[in-house]
């Protein structure tokens, strides 16, 4: 133990941390050496962010030890405590003070009560040097932060971290907004720092960055460290297998899925995915490019189909469902609803999408869905009144009937519809929000991560609800952050990476490793399978 600690800058052992019922970290361990670039990898929710918050002093662990340069500690106390030890962190969100200048943002938090001991000239020189390392030589230091592009803001937060004397730099998805040039400059700087004996710990959703930059990689899964290896000895598929927890089947998978036709055939629900046969297409996505730089998406969603959507945080899947719902305009392309006779009508607005029968269930129940002070019935019926009124007077009896119908089919636990919605559990609240649109007989249902924070039993009931809806011919676009959920419920899974749909995986023949591989941009298999971008 001691010998290890001496050769290490940072050692984490058996670290755990819970938030209420949620166990974010169970037993994480990690060892970062001096003069090393170390990658921390894992899916959404694997505990990476929690671990990084502990390492930067934001959170304290429940148990486990942390050895920093030979000193064993329980925690780092506070962010400034961590900084004092030489740990600099750049977080995923670009945290800036938008009204302050670039220079003030770079030196934010270094002042004591008054600015002292530092001249303006020193500040300018320090900021220039830090920005120079990152390829931002020409950036005006007195520009207000809000005038900068997202990439420039992200680089400025990195500059803020590296002007301090650091020995461990933590980058949490800090490269997501950078273009190739600036990313290369950042990597050059990190390699330079490594040669000076400093350490870097970083997370990235790009597999090529991990393989190209890191010396070692530690993989977290469900809050525990499942593997640590030298990158020179690791394979892409090996890393992905550890992340998804299916290391045992890696070999089988990499042997290949067989011919394309076999992979596409789905005997159970979709006898033939070919364009002519099968159920009627209901929604047509025509060359939709989410961002200026992303590949256009063309696909059809057919009656009764459940299309899953996956991707790491911020890869375009949310933008895609928002485009379907008419809440957002894509860089180019269209979403069209197809009528019975095949006539196409484009979606231009949220209201327009609703008129076409495209109904959207938002992600954030509390802020975008629920009317907290209103009753269960009012929460359910709010959307119904647009249809069920006579000269503006409510037709309560019809709405009441729809409510009873829904209560039975969804097994909604609600003794009295007049009680406030806030007394229901998260799962039951979600049922009411779904019921709001199901009662309107949707033509397409678009749901954005509807089962977050829903208990296991209710989840099962909601699966049943979605399946019955699909059996009635309503197509469902189902975005989820849980791969298991997608594999359980959907017919095929569209995976997003950097704003493009990179893979369309038939659920029957796909494993979670395939999904994770596609999420990390390892699309070689996914793309060849079922041409997602063939439009």
């Amino acid at each position, binding site marked *: 133990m001691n010998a290890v600690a001496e050769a290490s800058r940072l050692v984490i052992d058996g670290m755990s941390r819970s938030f209420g019922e949620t166990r974010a970290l169970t037993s994480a361990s990690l060892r970062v050496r001096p003069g090393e670039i170390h990658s921390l990898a894992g899916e959404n929710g694997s505990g990476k962010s929690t671990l990084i918050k502990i390492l930067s002093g934001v959170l304290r662990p429940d148990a486990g030890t942390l050895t920093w340069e030979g000193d064993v500690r329980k925690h780092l106390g506070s962010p400034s405590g961590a900084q004092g030890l030489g740990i600099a962190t750049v977080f995923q969100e670009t945290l800036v003070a938008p009204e302050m200048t670039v220079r003030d943002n770079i030196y934010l938090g270094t002042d004591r009560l008054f600015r002292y001991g530092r001249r303006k000239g020193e500040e300018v020189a320090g900021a220039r040097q830090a920005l120079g390392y990152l390829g931002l030589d020409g950036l005006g230091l007195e520009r207000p932060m809000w005038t900068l592009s997202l990439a420039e803001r992200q680089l400025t937060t990195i500059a803020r971290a590296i002007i301090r004397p650091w020995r461990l730099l933590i980058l949490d998805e800090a490269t997501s907004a950078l273009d190739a040039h600036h990313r290369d400059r950042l990597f050059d700087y990190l390699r330079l720092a490594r040669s000076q004996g400093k350490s870097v710990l970083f997370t990235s959703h790009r597999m090529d960055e991990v393989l190209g930059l890191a010396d070692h990689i530690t993989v977290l899964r469900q809050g525990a460290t499942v593997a640590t290896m030298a990158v020179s000895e690791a394979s892409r598929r090996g890393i992905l297998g550890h992340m998804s927890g299916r290391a045992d089947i890696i070999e089988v998978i990499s042997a290949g899925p067989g011919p394309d036709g076999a992979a596409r055939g789905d005997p159970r629900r979709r006898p033939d995915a070919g364009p002519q046969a099968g159920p009627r297409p209901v929604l047509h996505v025509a060359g939709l490019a989410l961002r200026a730089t992303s590949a256009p998406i063309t696909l059809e969603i057919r009656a009764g189909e459940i299309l899953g959507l996956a991707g790491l945080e911020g890869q375009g899947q949310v933008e895609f469902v928002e485009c379907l719902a008419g809440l957002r305009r894509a860089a180019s392309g269209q979403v069209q609803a197809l009528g019975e006779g095949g006539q196409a009508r484009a979606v231009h607005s*949220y*209201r327009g999408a*609703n008129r076409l029968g495209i109904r*959207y269930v*938002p992600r954030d129940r509390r*802020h*975008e*869905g*629920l*009317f*907290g*002070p*209103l*009753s269960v*019935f*009012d929460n359910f*019926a*709010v*959307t119904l*009144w*647009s249809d069920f*009124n006579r000269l*503006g*007077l*409510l037709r*309560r009896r019809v709405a*009441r009937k729809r409510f009873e119908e829904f209560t039975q089919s969804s097994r909604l*636990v*609600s*003794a*009295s*519809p*007049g*009680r*406030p919605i*806030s*007394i*229901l*559990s998260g799962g*039951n609240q979600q049922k009411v929000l779904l019921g*709001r649109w199901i009662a309107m007989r949707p033509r397409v249902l678009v749901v954005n991560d509807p089962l977050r924070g829903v208990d296991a039993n209710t989840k099962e009931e909601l699966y049943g609800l979605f399946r019955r809806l699909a059996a009635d011919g309503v197509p469902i676009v189902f975005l989820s952050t849980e791969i298991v959920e997608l594999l359980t419920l959907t017919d095929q899974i569209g995976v997003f990476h950097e704003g493009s749909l990179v893979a369309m995986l038939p659920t029957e023949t796909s494993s979670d490793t395939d999904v994770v591989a596609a999420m990390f941009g390892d699309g070689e298999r996914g793309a060849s399978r079922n041409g997602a971008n063939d439009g």
Partner: protein
Amino acid sequence: MTDPNSIPAPDGPPGLALAARQPAAGASRKAAAATAANFTSALPYILVPVLFILSLTFIPGYFSKGSIVSLLILASLLGLSSLGQTMTIIAGGIDLSIPAVIGLSDIIVTQLYYRHWSLPVIFLAIAALAILIGTISAVSSVLLHVHSLITSFGMSLVVSGIALEWSNGQTSGAVPGWLTSGVSAIGHTGPLPIPLIIIVWAVASVLAVGFMRLTRIGRETYALGANPVAARLAIVRSTWTLVVVFSISALCAAMVGVFFAGYSGIPDPTVGEPYFFLTITAVMIGGTSLLGGRGGYLRTVMGALIVAELTTLLVGVGFNASFQELALGILVIALTSSYGRELKVAARI
């Protein structure tokens, strides 16, 4: 008007139904929490008779038709001017232009009637102007993305500016006699020995309660105030809803201005000034939350009665105006802090 099988609206007077529905076994704590919540939200309904009995006890000779009608006239003026305010507050806004609209309407009636305009024309002009004022407050709040607190306040300055300019130097005005008797304690409405304003308030109250409970736009008002983001996603007509409630608010204020003109018969642009805070006081005492989405007009009716009763009681036992404000302030804080305690997580199903 309440069908026993219908779903109770959230603003309805809480009865025992809720407590009775609690399962008997293993839920006594939930039942206790629900009962406590019921008690505080029932407070205004209890306070109205309690304050009345206190007045009977402490003010000698209070139990007479004259004093009760006077009390109701006071409550009617406040209740009518708080009617639209209740709706704008439930919609998540607030209308600060009520006093100004009362003043302007008072000027218009006294001046135009003095110049022998016909009454229907005067009333139509006032109504059209009120709808215009309400619409501007609402639409500018939506278009400029600012709270109606700001737009209605701006509107208030504009309207009171016009009223002051118009009434500048004018001391003479006239109102029809029936309007004067409509706000007098000895006034009659047809064969009924009750002044017009009380009848108007009673009818308006029934309409307002029905409007909020039984119409699409009434339910949309609650949804908009409870969560504007969710309301947009649930295709609630936000702009139209705000236009309607702010227009109703301005119409009510204009109506009160007309009755005030009946009181004095002379033009007075500042007559509505006390209603700046009194309307909000009545709404809050009744239990409609300034956060929006909670409450109802029946509660504000109780709030207006409580304010009128408390004022009468304090005057009757010899306290001065400053003490009345102090008492109202204490009541607002005491009551509103007890409202709206939501059930604990433990009581959820």
